[in-house]
């Protein structure tokens, strides 16, 4: 059953620069407890104070701290929208529509080994996913890839909730190469893989999963306008035809997609 959606004026609790290309926004709802949200879901953030942007920006839920009533967003600075979000200061309001879409499937039991694979800013939803698994008594394995070591984000947070393996394209940390080349994939068997990252990476992981008969879910980030299934802009071709990523996804079983 879908979780109820809300429009909330979040307030920025802190803003942290992670290198010069990423910003971590920690926000709270000053008026009410944050609603229930599942790992893999996202929020549509309204971008104020930017002449260049028009639409909201879909940003995945990086972490939810129910004790502190905090929600975290990890924002990569790529365009006018993300740069405007990065200009937010402590105390500023941030209008959010959340939670949207469907989350990742959670493992059914603790004896199933679950691998979470992230690339670049795509690691963001996996932190919340891993933290929720950890709360349920499961220990996830993370396989995180980036171009260089300084683009691997929140490693300490990941290590707190699971086992972390790393690749970098230039070899500055962990194994050199892409995540699909990491030795852990060939040493251990996993019962399920959840992936979020750049499209070529997700396709490579999906191919690996299919070849090895492992259930695999990926999180897509098609451009979208409304986030509610109304505008039909963010469609992905699936075995059921064109479906909205914002409502049928963003998380899809790779077998539903028409990726070859």
């Amino acid at each position: 059953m879908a979780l109820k959606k809300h429009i909330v004026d979040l307030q920025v609790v802190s803003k942290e620069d992670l290198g010069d290309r990423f910003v971590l926004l920690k926000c709270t709802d000053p008026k009410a407890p944050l609603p229930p949200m599942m790992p893999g879901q996202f929020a549509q953030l309204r971008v104020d104070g930017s002449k260049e942007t028009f639409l909201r920006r879909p940003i995945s839920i990086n972490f939810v701290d129910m004790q502190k009533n905090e929600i975290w967003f990890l924002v990569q600075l790529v365009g006018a929208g993300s740069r405007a979000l990065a200009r937010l200061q402590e105390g500023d309001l941030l209008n959010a529509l959340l939670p949207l879409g469907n989350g990742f499937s959670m493992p059914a039991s603790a004896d199933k080994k679950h691998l979470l694979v992230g690339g670049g800013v795509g690691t963001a939803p996996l932190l919340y996913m891993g933290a929720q698994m950890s709360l349920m008594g499961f220990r996830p394995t993370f396989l995180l890839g980036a171009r260089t070591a300084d683009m691997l984000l929140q490693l300490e947070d990941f290590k707190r909730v699971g086992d972390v393996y790393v690749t970098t394209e230039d070899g500055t940390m962990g194994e050199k190469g892409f995540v699909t080349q990491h030795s852990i994939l060939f040493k251990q068997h996993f019962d399920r893989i959840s992936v979020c990252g750049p499209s070529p990476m997700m396709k490579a992981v999906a191919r690996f999963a299919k070849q090895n008969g492992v259930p695999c879910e990926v999180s897509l980030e098609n451009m979208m306008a409304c986030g509610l299934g109304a505008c039909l802009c963010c469609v992905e071709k699936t075995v059921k035809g064109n479906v909205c990523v914002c409502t049928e996804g963003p998380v899809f079983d790779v077998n539903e997609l028409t990726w070859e």
Partner: protein
Amino acid sequence: MTASGTFGYGIEFEDVVDLTAIGGIIVKGTTFQPRQGNDYPRMAETPSGMLNCVGLQNKGVQYFCETIYPKIRKIDTQMIVNVSGSSPEDYARCAACVNDLEDIHAIELNISCPNVHDGGMAFGVTTEGASSVVRAVRKAYNKTLIVKLSPNVTDIVSIAKAVEAEGADSVSLINTLMGTAIDIEKRRRMLSIGTGGLSGPCVKPVALRMVYQVAKAVNIPVIGLGGISSATDAIEFIMAGASAIEIGTANFLDPAISAKVAQGINEWLDAHNIASVKDIIGVAE
């Protein structure tokens, strides 16, 4: 009211807005046959607006009548179905199906969709094309018939008069302006079919001009839309001659905007001691 294609069937928005606070919901473009729509990408962000080329993705009028209609018929607001087609007969067939639905009292005829090849806008840009569709539908549909006009024309007044002459009960305008955007790194237009329909505040001045012109020229009510995002915008359209307004793209920025605009209009009327919105329709010099 909420504009077609921007508010789904209403139920998508019920978590975040009180649907009964909205004057009406124009549900998304429905065709006789199911349509897959165009390929992704279907949108591009533009200055104060967006382009889309959805291409009338829908499961067909039969699915609508059997599966959607039972879910939405009891929502306490005007539910209007936006009807599209690829020939006058195709429009009429679809309209005839909707004619049988007890709780749907009006349709909006989309003769102005720029995003499908086989019809839509082609009908809306000539008086002959527009007349032929309205004539066919008028025979098949005996409730309120609203015709949505294309702004991509030299003379929108002549089209409005033509559909009025064929028995349209109302015209709504404007549909989207045809536009494009280019990704210079990929050397490619950003939309899968090359062009798309432009909407949002950027088109408001054009829409307002056309509403003003058409309202002066026809005797049927005019429904105004095009970039409305606030009560002030809505009042501008009403003063230009619109008897009602639709909110489209603004629903994407704030899903609760329609109820807010309705409330804002009432507050403005109260503050100015104006009894009814009727008293300001078309008052702008």
